[in-house]
């Protein structure tokens, strides 16, 4: 039962991802992407990582995707954008990326054929994650805080000028 749940979720993830990347309408694509993320969250939970599953939903599917929504709304792409996207998705454009991606997948499959048998099935609770995070990985935490700060400053800088210009007009 649980195992079939895993495969169903995996199927959902792959299909919704493919759908997300082939939609012409950005909002549709975004919705599919959220579905894919939720499916991955299910996978996380099934693999015994409830904390990761929660974060996947809250931050990925929640916060980050909302950012996308905001930006898409601000840009106000509209119907013409959709038409143009459709135009760009003609089969001719598929050839090179498709072949490349397929080759890569093939190689990955070949490489991963002999992976170790099974996952342990042990569930790692948030406490253990927290202890590890602020134990051996403290430096990484510091670095990621720096990274976030840089992202903050960068986003503020880039976005502010956009907004200020708009207001001037």
């Amino acid at each position: 039962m649980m195992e079939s749940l895993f495969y169903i979720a995996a199927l959902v993830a792959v299909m919704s991802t493919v759908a997300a990347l082939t939609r012409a309408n950005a909002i549709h694509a975004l919705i599919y992407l959220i579905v894919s993320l939720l499916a991955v969250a299910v996978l996380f939970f099934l693999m015994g990582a409830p904390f990761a599953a929660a974060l996947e939903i809250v931050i990925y599917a929640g916060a980050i995707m909302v950012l996308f929504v905001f930006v898409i709304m601000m840009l106000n792409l509209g119907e013409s954008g959709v038409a143009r996207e459709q135009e760009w998705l003609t089969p001719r454009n598929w050839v090179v990326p498709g072949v490349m991606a397929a080759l890569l997948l093939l190689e990955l499959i070949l490489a991963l054929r002999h992976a170790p048998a099974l996952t342990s099935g042990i569930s790692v609770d948030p406490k253990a994650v927290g202890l590890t995070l602020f134990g051996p990985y403290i430096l990484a935490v510091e670095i990621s805080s720096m990274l976030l700060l840089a992202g903050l400053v960068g986003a503020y800088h880039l976005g502010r000028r956009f907004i200020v210009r708009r207001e001037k007009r």
Partner: protein
Amino acid sequence: MAIWLIPFLPLLSATLLMVSTGRMPRSLTAVLGAGSVGLAALLVALLAQGFLADGQVREVTLWTWMAVDNFTPRVAFYVDGLTIVMMSVITGVGFLIHLYSIEFMWDDESLCRYFAYMNLFVAAMLLLVMADNLLLLYLGWEGVGVCSYLLVGFWYRDADNGKAARKAFVVTRVGDTAMALGLFLLFTELGTLDIQPLMVAANANWQVGDTLPIVATALLLGGAVGKSAQLPLHTWLPDAMAGPTPVSALIHAATMVTAGVYLIARNYQLFLLAPPTMQAVAWIGVATLLLAAFTALAQHDIKRILAYSTISQIGYMFLALGVGAFASGIFHLMTHAFFKALLFLAAGAVIHCLHHEHNIFRMGGLRTRLPVVFWSFLIGSAALAALPFTSGFYSKDAILLSAWEQPDIGPWLWAGGLLGALLTSIYSFRLVFIVFFGEAQTEPDRQPGWRMAGPLLLLCLLSLIGGWFALPLSGVFPENGHAQVNHSVEIISIATPLLGLLLAYLLFLGRQLSIDKLLASPTGQALKSFCLSGWRIDNLYNALWVRPYTNLAHWWRNEPIDQLYNAVVAASQWSHRTLLGLQTGELRWYATSMVFGLVLLLAIMLRNAT
């Protein structure tokens, strides 16, 4: 008495004049310019008097110029009879020409510059003749060359003058370079450049007819030929007439151009070791004197006629040197300095009084209008043509006699010299008859003043009596006594110039003989223009040297070597452009190429893993 003062005085005056840069009053400039040379002349006279009294060679060492190993040329002077003669000519004639220049150049804005150059020239020329070693001689040698360049191009506004000046310098420089190589050879082989020790060493180490002295003297001869405007480096002298006339008188007639003669005479012991070179000297002399005389016949610029006659007369001096009659050569050098300076100065007076007219066919009838100039010119021409009892007669006669006595080739040399004498007489009296007789074409607008007339009269006197001077050369050159005087030869020598005079009279004044018809024929025309252009030697040199050189320079202007480096640059730029094509700026292209790399990398890893 301080011998070093003699070249130093003009040098000092030249420096002062240069430093003043024309802010000095004109009268002071003139006094300084002429006075310094006059003072030097006075000192030379005193020196000569002393020398004639005791016959002592005077040697003065000022300082050692440089000392590297055994190469120790000194700044030192060596004054013997030959030097005294040369110094007397340089300062004496030089002073007269300076005096004359004051009036001639008075109206020129650059009087100061003129006198500075002239004084510098006198100083350099004195150094040349007084030098104790060949390196110092070379200093004077090049120094006079530069002064000649500066003075020929004195009127710098006309580009033609500049061209003539450059030609003069570069052509003589060709000879100078040969001479420099000669100096290297002499030093390498004999270990010294001091003239007297050099002669001793040469006689000690070399036999007559050895290769080395022949090569060395040939190289020195190159220098002499260049400076003295002999074949094949004579082409610069006619063009050098672009300078002010007193310059032509001093540099291009009386002194500098005879430096080559001096050089050979000074090193005669070396030349005696190389009979082939001596023969070459003689033949060069004969060839040059004939070529120049023929050319002079066809010219119509008064100064060019005199220039070619100078070339021709120096040819006689070379002939004298070549047959071993060194004293006669120097004697002719002196008399030539007198009468050629006289001729140039008289020509200068004509030009000065006729609004800078140079063409003899636009002169005429000046006999009554410029009497002083006429008589000067007449006397000068007589001496040039070697009419009996003028100074030129004695010196030229001695040369011809020496040539005749030469074994084997003697008669040929003599005949060449004689033909030259005939031609000399014809062209000089052609000049006199056309300029001073006949119809007046241009009216003179002034008469020469005392500063011009005075030097003329003095030089007239010298041209007339110069033949009776006894030069103190006995201690310098070996005696070659005229054992038997061949009277028929003597008589022919005397008669030839008179015949030339007669021919000239018949052709150009009396018009009993006419060559108009001959000249009008195509052959005559061609011959005339051939002679007028100096036997087309200029054209030959242009085609042979000047044009290839300028073409080469033009061809190389863009640096063939740099093109090589540019090829490297082009190759790297090409690869840059090619690789630049990969950088399209399109994100998708980058992503795809990254994936391609990834695929490739994985493939390699997979292959290695299995």
